[in-house]
């Protein structure tokens, strides 16, 4: 029988990371993700790994850069203000084509904001976040189980593409406890890491950099990165559809709002309304084609987010021209409850 555990989302994610072979964690305290560094500080010693409480998020992400350059699986985690501080380093990771996993347990903002769950960092996560023309893969769990499962996947995708991968969770997903299945890790086939820095012994020196000054080099590098992002769009799109066949209205939501929407969906169905759910698991690459296909049948969409409207823009960009997209925003404080969403469904159904 499968082993079942009762865990917090933050812990299940950290457990998954160690299972995926992450042996280097660098982080700095910030609520609501402190369970993650605390978990690593307890468990890294047992797997001969390394935990460093860095002096800042700026240092954390650059330690990750160094560990990734040496070929190790490494991660950091933080929450919104800390993730802002890491953007410089994430941009360098992308520019130097280095793998790494960055977990954002999204709290509210702008500024110091609050510690409640939010989806206010969607734009930052899906549009690169730092300077320059780059993207990170963004995974959006909606349960304690997925905090674990997507952590396993994140390390593989980071290595597959030599690119940073962001897990975009939120305070609810990090803090709530649920049962989860302790699944084994089955790694994807991955390319050899022949680019890492180990000392130039018996080979030419390896160089990891993002500076391109010679005429034409920068443009070439940007096109190379672009081709990688196109490949992600082709191969890595992940989403869940629930009750979308013959639906009159489809809710588009990810993370905690998708979770609440699932309950709202049941209430709506019980009230005789044909409502379905479209839930992206990858926010970048966004499931544009799946959305387009869906919108050839369904003509009404309701995007629900814990912000004032971010993912809804990707929904609008993806759907067929004759589809209508509505938006319900519930800015952070507490997550919306299912009855509240049911009322919104009724308004646009």
């Amino acid at each position: 029988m499968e082993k079942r555990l009762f865990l917090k989302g933050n812990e299940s994610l950290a457990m998954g990371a160690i299972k995926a072979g992450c042996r280097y964690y660098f982080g700095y305290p910030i609520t609501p993700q402190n369970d993650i560094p605390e978990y690593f500080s307890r468990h890294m010693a047992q797997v001969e790994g390394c935990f460093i409480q860095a002096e800042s998020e700026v240092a954390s992400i650059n330690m990750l850069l160094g560990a990734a350059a040496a070929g190790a699986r490494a991660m950091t985690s933080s929450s919104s203000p800390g993730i802002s501080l890491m953007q410089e380093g994430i941009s360098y990771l992308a520019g130097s084509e280095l793998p790494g996993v960055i977990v954002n347990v999204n709290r509210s903002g702008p500024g110091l904001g609050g510690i409640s769950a939010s989806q206010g960092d969607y734009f930052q996560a899906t549009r690169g976040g730092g300077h320059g023309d780059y993207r990170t893969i963004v995974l959006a769990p909606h349960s304690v189980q997925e905090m674990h499962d997507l952590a396993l996947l994140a390390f593989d995708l980071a290595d597959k593409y030599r690119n940073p991968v962001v897990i975009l969770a939120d305070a609810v997903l990090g803090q709530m406890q649920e049962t989860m299945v302790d699944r084994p890790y089955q790694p994807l086939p991955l390319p050899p890491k022949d680019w890492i820095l180990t000392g130039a012994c018996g080979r030419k020196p390896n160089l990891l950099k993002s500076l391109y000054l010679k005429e034409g080099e920068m443009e070439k590098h940007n096109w190379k990165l672009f081709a990688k992002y196109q490949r992600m769009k082709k191969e890595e799109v992940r989403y869940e559809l629930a009750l979308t066949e013959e639906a009159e209205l489809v809710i588009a939501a990810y993370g905690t709002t998708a979770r609440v929407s699932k309950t709202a969906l049941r209430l709506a169905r019980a009230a005789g309304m044909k409502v379905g759910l479209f839930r992206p698991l990858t926010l970048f690459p966004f499931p544009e084609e799946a959305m387009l296909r869906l919108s050839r049948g369904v003509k009404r969409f309701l995007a629900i987010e814990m912000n004032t409207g971010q993912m809804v823009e990707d929904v609008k960009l993806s759907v067929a021209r004759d589809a209508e997209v509505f938006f319900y925003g519930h800015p952070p404080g507490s997550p919306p409850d299912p009855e509240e969403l049911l009322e919104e469904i009724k308004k646009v159904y």
Partner: protein
Amino acid sequence: MQQVFKRPQSLKNVPFHFCPGCHHGLIHRLVGEAIDYFNLRERTIGVAGVGCSVFVYEYFDIDVAEAPHGRAPAVATGLKRVLPDRIIFTYQGDGDLASIGMSEIVHTANRGENITVIFVNNTVYGMTGGQMAPTTILGQQTTTSPYGRDFRQDGYPIRMAEMLATLEGTSFCVRVALNTPANLMKAKKAVRRAFEMQVNNMGFSFVELLSSCPTNWGMNSLKAHERVAKELIPYFPLGIFKERKATEEL
């Protein structure tokens, strides 16, 4: 005929791009000689700072990672934790290390990371065109202190070697200059000692090198050497500020 002086193996056979009279070339050579001396070329990884320092990968025949501005000690920490048996050094200028990277250098030293830091202090931001640095001497004119650095507006030049020597985690901390043959020989010894500390797992080693930047100082190389003696050394005294003798002291 016997060749008695040659390019260190750790340096590529390419001409330096540095300005005439700049000390970066000399410092590259000293680092290359130290790497060769301990036969470390094939297990050394350099971390380049931002500024004129970034080009270490053009000249060293070793693996190199480029760090964001000021973050080289954090990048070096990540590398060293994964590869404790490799030799990791950072190469950073004064803007990089003493201004934007102050936090990373202090905490890396304080953790006693077993790495070597080569700190090139020429009292200006070189690559960006000679702006005021945290080490700019009082009264020194730069493009952002056109009337001379004034402590009432800009604070005082920071003495990094002395500051880092106060940290328990620091094992070797020295300031040298390159303006005379005698000083150059002392600098060579200091750089070698810093790498030796790391080879022997003695912890954090730091070498500050007072360096000239004739272009941004607006003078020729000889005047720049004189300036190092007359203006820099009196404020930034040369010497060893800390040196652990044995690992038992760690």
